């Protein structure tokens, strides 16, 4: 069985992460930003799983489960917040959410 070298995973992971970061930074739609965050999380998941198999340790996979669980929770909270914000502001454009401006 030919194993894919770990470098490939890392590169994929890096590409995915960069796409995620770019998405967060340039998009104004909160949902898209959210999806980008998911992308970043999964990019890191991919890297962790890859390293885990490379060093033959399960701990990485355990971490990933936690990350997925936390991500699920975060999505629930985050989506709820977005819904609430949409209710009050009729928009989910993040540029309009600047109440914390100093």
């Amino acid at each position, binding site marked *: 069985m030919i194993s894919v070298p770990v470098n490939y995973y890392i590169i994929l992971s890096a590409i995915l992460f960069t796409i995620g970061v770019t998405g967060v*930074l340039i998009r104004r739609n909160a949902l898209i*930003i959210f999806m980008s965050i998911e992308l970043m999380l999964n990019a890191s998941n991919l890297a962790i799983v890859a390293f885990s198999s490379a060093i033959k340790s399960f701990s990485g996979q355990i971490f990933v489960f936690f990350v997925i669980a936390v991500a699920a929770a975060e999505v629930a909270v985050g989506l709820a917040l977005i819904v609430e914000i949409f209710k009050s502001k009729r928009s989910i454009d*993040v540029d309009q959410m600047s109440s914390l*401006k*100093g």
Partner: protein
Amino acid sequence: MHLSETVNIGFFFLAPWLVFFPVIGLLINMIFGHRFSETVIGIVASLASGAAFVVSVLLAWSVAAGGGEAMSVPFAQWIHIGALNLDWTFRVDSLSATMMLVVSGVGTLIHIYAIGYMHEDVRFKNDVGRFQRFFIFLNLFIAAMMILVSGDSYMMLFVGWEGVGLCSFLLIGFWYEMDTLGRSSWANSNAAKKAFIVNRVGDFGFLIAGFIMFYAFGSFQFDEVFKQVHNIAPATIVAITLFMLVGVAGKSAQLPLYVWLPDAMAGPTPVSALIHAATMVTAGVYLVTRSAPLYSAVPQAQNIVAMVGAVTALFAATIAAGQYDIKKVLAYSTISQLGFMVAAVGMGAYVAGMFHLITHAFFKALLFLSAGSVILGMERGHHHLAHAHGHDDHKTKQKFKKGKHAESKEEHHEEEHGEVFDPGDMRNMGGLRKTMPVTFWLYMIGTLALAGIFPFAGFWSKDEILLDAAKAYPVAYYLLAVAAFFTAFYMGRQIWMVFFGEARHAAAAHAEESPRVMTVPLMVLAALSVLGGALNLPGVHTLTNWLEHTVTLVEHEGQVASWLDVSWGGLNPYVALLSTVLALLAIYFSWLIYGRNPLKAGQIDPLKKPLGAIFTGMENKWYVDEIYQAIILTPYTKISYFLADVIDWKFWHDFVHETVIAGTYNWISNIALNDYADQKGIDAFANWLGTATQSFSATLRKVQNGFVRSYALSVLLGVVFIIGYLILK
């Protein structure tokens, strides 16, 4: 042991009922009185007082049966603490039994009289409901007086002493919302207050005497005190007796504390008769007699007491001769007669003093009650006139038909506008002999008894006093003899002015005689005034023998003039003759001045012209009230107001507390600390710190644009920077 055995003989156990009967009477009238008719109220009260009289008779009989032995009847504990042992114990001996008889006897007669008197009085004054209250107070008075005379210790006596003072206050101020003429005023309540306060001055003396006594004798109980008299320094006893004299002067209206008694005439007439003539005011005389062992031990004190009495007797008699109010004359006469008694007991002539006390109770009560009858007669006459006027006036005619109430209201209304009629002013009277014959004769008897005409009661008792004075205290004798002259003079003046001549006011012409319920008690008193002398007739000396059981008599030592040594069984013919001649002379003078040419309406007193300023002085009571006002009342009030308004409030409360303490604190905390140290020091620094931080953060604030993505970018840059650093390191 001894005590309980003897208590079983006789009726001594009844002693507490002297107080209980009147108290029960007053409680019944207080609780059920509003449902009773006037007659029932009167009967209940009179029965209560009558029951006390019956008890007194039984007690007196018991004393006589027991050979005059004094008896203590313990009833209850009172104050027992430390060395102080006070009990409610009744003392029955010949002296207290005598007083009980006088108080309850005269008291009961006056109760009966008052049923008739108050019936009309409350109607003339438009407050029928107050009838009940009068008899409650009257019974309370009997109870208090009984405590006074039957107490076994000075302090129990003091309870009664103040109790009668209270009753006097309540009864003088009985018509508290008006003056003696029924006008809306503070006068009556002022008189009541004055009486109580002056009495309290006397009580202060009594209390101090009590304190000294307690620390000298260790007890307040009469026997305990008296048996130690010879072991105590005379100076202490002088102090005790003189402080006690202050009490006596207060209660028995002697100089200088007599001023309340004339004003006390504001009370209804039965009160004047019972309290301010017959009983309460004699309490001082009783006290001195009771304390005979103390007074007899210190002649210096006796001298002072005798002189106070004698001077008062003369002083008051002069004022009495210048008064126009029928009751005021009698009031000053009472003060004068009390002076006789006090002088007598001061001289050690205790029996003479007590004798005069008893006869005086009879004839002065008679005079006052007759005066009350005269006043009511005048009121009736005046009322009659008002009624007649009413018939002429068509408008008021309607109202009169509605009944007595509306009628008297109308009269009241009328009085407020017109001139006020004074039914007690002798200048309004005259000729009453014809319209009120019964009262006239009763008044005559009283007058003769008071003037000391043979063989009326006053003759015997006054003579005994004069004789004792002549023997031992010449100065007092002269004063008293002149006072006796004045007595006969002003009584004569009164008789001529009131009963003879022509009516000087329409009311006098229409005066009506009083009903039976009033005149019958008067007749009893008149009989007693005639026969009272029999109590201690020369040669028989019933009263002397009776009182001897209690009061040890002291014979005066030393030589007296030979004419004074003559004795017809105790009566000296020269002294007796002299005083009778003086009295007759005085009556003759009064006839010359007032009887021969009767006073006309509106005429001034014929004495005024020849005597001038002296008569003005007599008329105005020698300005004693004004002097007291100026030297005591006004300064006291001023000092009080000064202390209250200036010292306590403006200085202490406002200045010291508000300005000095609170002000200083405010200054320190506000100006010194707050403004300078705090505001300009600490606060300024803190403020600078704040401003500096503010401007610093204002610059930083610009970073905070609120865009999440820009924050995310900074995070990314940070991460890149850190990772770059880690890689390049």
